[in-house]
């Protein structure tokens, strides 16, 4: 499909466990159009994490073709993948994954550092992103000084700051209480409403139900 931001064609990923090969993803094809909010749902062991790694360009498919924003990922080396991640993908993790002992502002500014953005512009853009998420009064706080919900907001700000084509959220509410979780989901919907493509990975059918489209994974295959 032309114009798709994510295009997986017959993608498989098998892990070589020495004596036998374990298929984590088998012949998966998926298209995500710009502006979509897609939830990838499945129980543990269904291949969600592998899917997330491949979509996030942290891993390469064993076979099949993955195009992110039109460009094939298979030919890229590690540096090329890093560049693609830096430009096109914003990650939101279950465990926030903020840099420890680093202020919220510096955390959000770090992706820009790897894009070679100047110090002054980094600070301005990171501050703007944090303010947009209502964290403008927490710029100098380190992760340990923030609640789980606040940390996840900082993480979302970090995912946003590079203006990526795609936001990949891996169980973003998994570590949060239901209220903060609802907050973060509301935030993601708000971002989606303003035109961002969001792929959400979750095992929770309730969370998945809020997405525009659900993709169900089971045993490494798309079942629905």
């Amino acid at each position, binding site marked *: 499909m032309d114009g798709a931001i994510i295009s997986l064609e017959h993608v498989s990923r098998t892990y070589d466990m020495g004596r036998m090969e374990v298929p984590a993803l088998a012949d998966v094809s998926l298209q995500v159009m710009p502006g979509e909010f897609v939830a990838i749902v499945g129980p543990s062991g269904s291949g969600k994490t592998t899917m997330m790694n491949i979509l996030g360009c*942290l891993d390469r498919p064993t076979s099949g073709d993955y195009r992110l924003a039109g460009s094939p990922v298979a030919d890229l080396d590690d*540096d090329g993948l890093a560049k693609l*991640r*830096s430009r096109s993908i914003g*990650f939101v993790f279950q465990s926030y994954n903020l840099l420890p002992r680093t202020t919220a502002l510096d955390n959000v500014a770090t992706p820009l550092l*790897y894009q070679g953005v100047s110090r002054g512009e980094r600070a301005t853009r990171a501050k703007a992103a944090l303010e947009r998420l209502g964290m403008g009064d927490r710029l100098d706080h380190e992760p340990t000084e923030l609640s789980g919900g606040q940390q996840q907001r900082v993480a979302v700000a970090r995912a946003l700051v590079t203006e990526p084509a795609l936001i990949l959220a891996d169980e973003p509410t998994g570590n949060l209480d239901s209220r903060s979780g609802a907050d973060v989901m509301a935030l993601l919907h708000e971002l989606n409403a303003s035109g961002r493509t969001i792929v959400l990975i979750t095992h929770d059918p309730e969370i998945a139900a809020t997405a525009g489209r659900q993709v169900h994974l089971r045993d490494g295959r798309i079942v629905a």
Partner: protein
Amino acid sequence: MSLLELLRLSLSRLRTHRLRAALTMLGVIIGVASVVALVGVGQGTTSNITSRLAGLGTNLLTISPTGGGGGTSTLTLDDVAAIGKLPAIGGVAPEISSNMTVSAGTKNTTTTVVGTTPAYPMVRAYDIWQGSFLTDPSVDHDLRVAVLGATTASTLGLGESDIGTQISVGGLPFRVIGILQAKGGTGFQDPDDQVLVPIGTVEKYFVGGDTVRTIGVTVSEADQMTATSTAITALLRDRHDLAATTASDFNVFNQTQLLAAASSISATLTLLLGGIASISLIVGGIGIMNIMLVSVRERTREIGIRKAIGARGRDILAQFLVEALTLSLLGGLIGIVLGLVVSAGIGQLAGWGFVFNPITIVAAVLFSLAVGVIFGVWPARQAARLDPITALRYE
């Protein structure tokens, strides 16, 4: 990423782990400081010896009786005259010395009074600052005239206008006819603290007899030193009627050679000490490597995060390498300052002042840089090669 960004990143990292950074740097600090201090002290010693070498007088042979200062001397003024007739002799100056109280007006001091001849300044490499040195007539007639060393003169409060002043040496009146130029030598004996008088005067009024303590001889050509030394030995053995089996009752001492040897020993020792000290620098480097490896382990997750949000392997490599370099360079700089302070302190105590050698500093900086690179590269490569997926899941 620019070097400035990397530096900023590593400095903020070191700030959050101050104690760890300080302890890691301590290894390099001690290493560099000991190299700088030991080499500084070594070079101070060498240059001290070299300057004393120059101050001794060129091609100097010293003849003294066996048994040091205590025994009776068998060297006589006739021996001196006989040595003067040997070939390749530049000058011969006999010396008899005695410690006496010297006073001028209300000031007095105890110093070495040396009886000698007009050849003395040439043999011992002194220059006259004021007045004149002992002359042949004053020596021939055992006159009570004195030439003061620079230190003695200033102790007694005598200056350029005081030539001709009466002073008292060992209770007898002497006239000051000259003051020597300061040699400014260092070491255990101040070469400027002495009073020189005609040799006969000392024998007549203070010591008695006609033996001399020391004979200084300059040889006209440097390559004649050994031959002349042999010739003097043969001459004196013959004059003293020594049988071939009897040991000599005097020593011919080539001080220049001795000090030259000492200087080369000191230079070798400097190298040796520097070498030993650089071992501690290597140990300091291993300390850096150790802490960097621990740091890579501890920060596995951080590395995973950084990679996920766009850091390339080389960004991570650079970050860790610059961190190791910051530790080693900062440690190196502190070590240099500390080493210079220590070597300046020792130089002050030993009296040769502060020997500053820019080559040592440059070498120390380069060495600590090298330590940072050598011991930082491996941990940094380990960090750079981490797989982002595994690193992100690392607890």
